[in-house]
Each structure stands twice: as C-alpha cells, then as structure tokens.
C-alpha cells in the first residue's frame, strides 16, 4: 500500500512537471538548467564579492575554492542548453533575447571573455585581496558584456 501511494505521488509529480513543461514550451528544462548554472556562479561570486566589498574578512583558502568552483561552472559545456529559439518569447521565465542567435551575434567572443575572466580569477583569488578585487572587476565586465547585449532590461 505504501509503495502504491509513493508510486502515485511520483506519478502525480511527474504529470505536474510535464504539464508545466508544456505550458512553458519545449525548452523548459534547458532554461532551468542554465539558470541553475547562473545561480551557481552567482553563489561563488557571492563569496568572492563579499571579500572584495569588505563585508567578509579575506580568506585565501575560501577565495580559492570559490574561484575554482566558478571556473568549473564557466568551463562546463552548456552549449546544448542554448538551443535556438529558447528565448523570452518562447518562455517568459527566460530573460534571454533572440539576438543571441541572430546573424553576426558575437556571443562566442563574449563567452570566451567570461572564460578568460574566470581563469584570471582562479589565478588571483588565493593570492591576496588586491588581486581578487582586480579580477572581480574583469569578471563583472564579462558578466555585463553578455547581459548588456542579450538580456531583457529588467535589472
């Protein structure tokens, strides 16, 4: 009985999930996944930024760990999470603009800038606070480089 109940619950959850996916269009999972990766990067940046802002005392070990994590999250192959058409028009829960896939889009160059910034951060974070602060500026520029061109104007 207990198994049956659990099975029913799982089935119900799956159905609800499928319904949501349908309302949100065919790219719901890709969008959720890439937003998850963005949130993960933001969490690592929270550790580094808290030190850069002086809200948290600088700790080389914690900074290095966050920078390693950031680089890992930036390096992960997320290309399959950005299928053409998975923009705000297809699913309002995404803030991505169709310009990402437009002719002449320099999204690739911008992604490279992000990787380079994350590499620089990994080299800097464990060194000292000043290096961390400088790298933070580069990472910030790389984030907004993409958000400026390819994200809805909220925020």
């Amino acid at each position, binding site marked *: 009985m207990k198994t049956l109940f659990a099975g029913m619950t799982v089935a119900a959850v799956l159905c609800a999930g499928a319904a949501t996916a349908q309302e949100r269009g065919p790219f719901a999972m890709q969008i959720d996944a890439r937003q998850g990766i963005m949130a993960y990067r933001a969490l690592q940046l929270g550790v580094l930024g808290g030190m850069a802002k002086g809200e948290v005392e600088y700790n080389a070990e914690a900074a290095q760990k966050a920078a390693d994590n950031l680089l890992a999250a930036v390096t992960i192959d997320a290309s399959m999470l950005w299928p053409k058409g998975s923009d705000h028009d297809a699913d309002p829960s995404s803030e991505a603009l169709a310009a990402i896939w437009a002719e002449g889009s320099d999204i690739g160059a911008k992604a490279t800038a992000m990787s380079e910034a994350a590499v620089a951060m990994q080299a800097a974070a464990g060194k000292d606070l000043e290096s961390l602060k400088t790298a933070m500026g580069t990472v910030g520029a790389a984030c*907004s480089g993409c958000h400026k061109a390819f994200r809805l104007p*909220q925020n």
Partner: protein
Amino acid sequence: MRRFLAALLVLAVVALGLFWFVTRPAPLPADALDGLTPDLAKGEQVFWAGGCAACHAAAEARGEAKLVLAGGQRFPSPFGTFVAPNISNDPAAGIGGWSALDLANAMLRGVSPRGEHYYPVFPYASYTMAALQDIVDLRAYLATLPADATPSAPHEVGFPFSIRRSLGAWKALYLDPAWVVSGELTPAEARGRYLAEALGHCGECHTPRGPFGGMERARWLAGGPVPGGKGNFPNITPAKLTWSERDIVEYLTSGFTPEFDSAGGHMALVVENTAHLPESDRAAIAAYLKRVAPVE
C-alpha cells in the same frame, strides 16, 4: 453668416497665435554663460555623470571607442523610432562647431542652434536642472574627443509627431525646472539629487510616462514597461529597492547586485558611466535614493 465667418477667422488667427506663442522655442539669454570659464577635468566628470556615451556611442563600444560619439543607436517608442545623432567633434556631421551656449540651449532648453525643438528622447527634461558651469566644462571636454564624419540618421517618426513645433506644447506640459525630491537634504543627498535627477537622468527610464510621453512625477522612479520594447524598468523607490546604500554603491561600480546577479540591458551601459565617477558621487546617489518617496 459673413459675420460668423469673420468671427471664426478671428478665432482661428487667435488660436494659431496662441499655438505659436506657447510652442515657441525658448533659448537662454545670450549672456547666460558670461564669466564662466571651463575646467576640463570637471568636464570629463560631467560627461560620465551625464551618460552621453551610453546613447551617443555605439552600444557595443568599450574603452576608447566609447569616446567616439558618432550616434546611431536606435530608441523605439510609441511615437516612432529615434536615432541618436552624431555629437562627435566633427564640425559638419557632429557638434564641433557649437559654442558652450549652443550646448546649454540643447541640454537645458531642448533647443537646437537653428532654434528648433529637440525630441524629448534627448533627456533635456532632466538636464534642464544642470548647472551652467557644468555645461561649460562639458563643452570643453567634448571638444577634446575624436571627430567622426558619419552623418546623423533621421528619426523615423510619423505625423503628427514629425512636426517639431508641436514639441513646444509638450514642453509647456512637461518641461518643469524643479527638483522632484524636496525638503531638507544633507550635502550628500543634495549632490545625489543633482546627479540622479539632472545629469544622470535616472527618471527618464525609471519613471513611468503618461500618454504624451511625459514623466509622471507623482510616481517618480517607480518603474514601468519599456516603451516600444519588452520587459520592465524596475521600481527603484525605497518601496522596492531595499538594498543598503553600500549595495547600491557596489551595483553602480561593478554592476553586481547583492545576490551577484549582474546588470543587463541599458543599465549595464549606465554602470559603465557611474563606474567612472568618484566613489563619493556613487554614495551620494545611494543616499539620495533612500530619500525618494516610496511608491508601490
């Protein structure tokens, strides 16, 4: 019947005269800048505080390219699409031949050197509160920037908005040279008000607009839909923007929110400007934002 027609004619002439009077361009007096001498270093600060490059440089420009003010960025609106003009130092294509008074008339009164009204997409409704000394300084700084010979593209605006004279009526309705936040302010809050309400023209995006495109001052900085586009400009009154002053300063420096999300869209360009200001100015803007009336 003839009498009636005559009366009608008189009435029409009076109405036309009234329209002519109300909509006439109102430049500054010719001696408005007398005795003011330019300070180049301060002019550069005015340039970043005023956000000139955010609209007049190419949207993708970085570094030195941000100083090439050749125009070309497009601004869709319910009234048509406006195209940022060339304000580089080129004497023909840009504003290289302008006097400081020409610049002051453009920024404070929305009037071109030829005496025509500018469209309020050029934020003179905010710049109108700018200090004349700042305009003189800015004029000197702009003269040091590169010249670019790209001609300005025409605005794509349909009738009746294509009749510039009618903008005089818009100005009569909306060009209000007064601070929005009033009352006793600390020096930092007052500086922040100057930067946010005048030079930084924050209200141009963050304040919702009425049917004729004027800022609704009763809902100052309360946000609203992006005109002619997707998404919303966020409400940055204390009702919604609950960040600490320190968080606001960080955002205006690096573009990072307290959650380490980062500024997107046109706001990323704004942050590229505010990042050039002294930290005390960013702190002043933060202090000012805390004094804005909360609007849900």
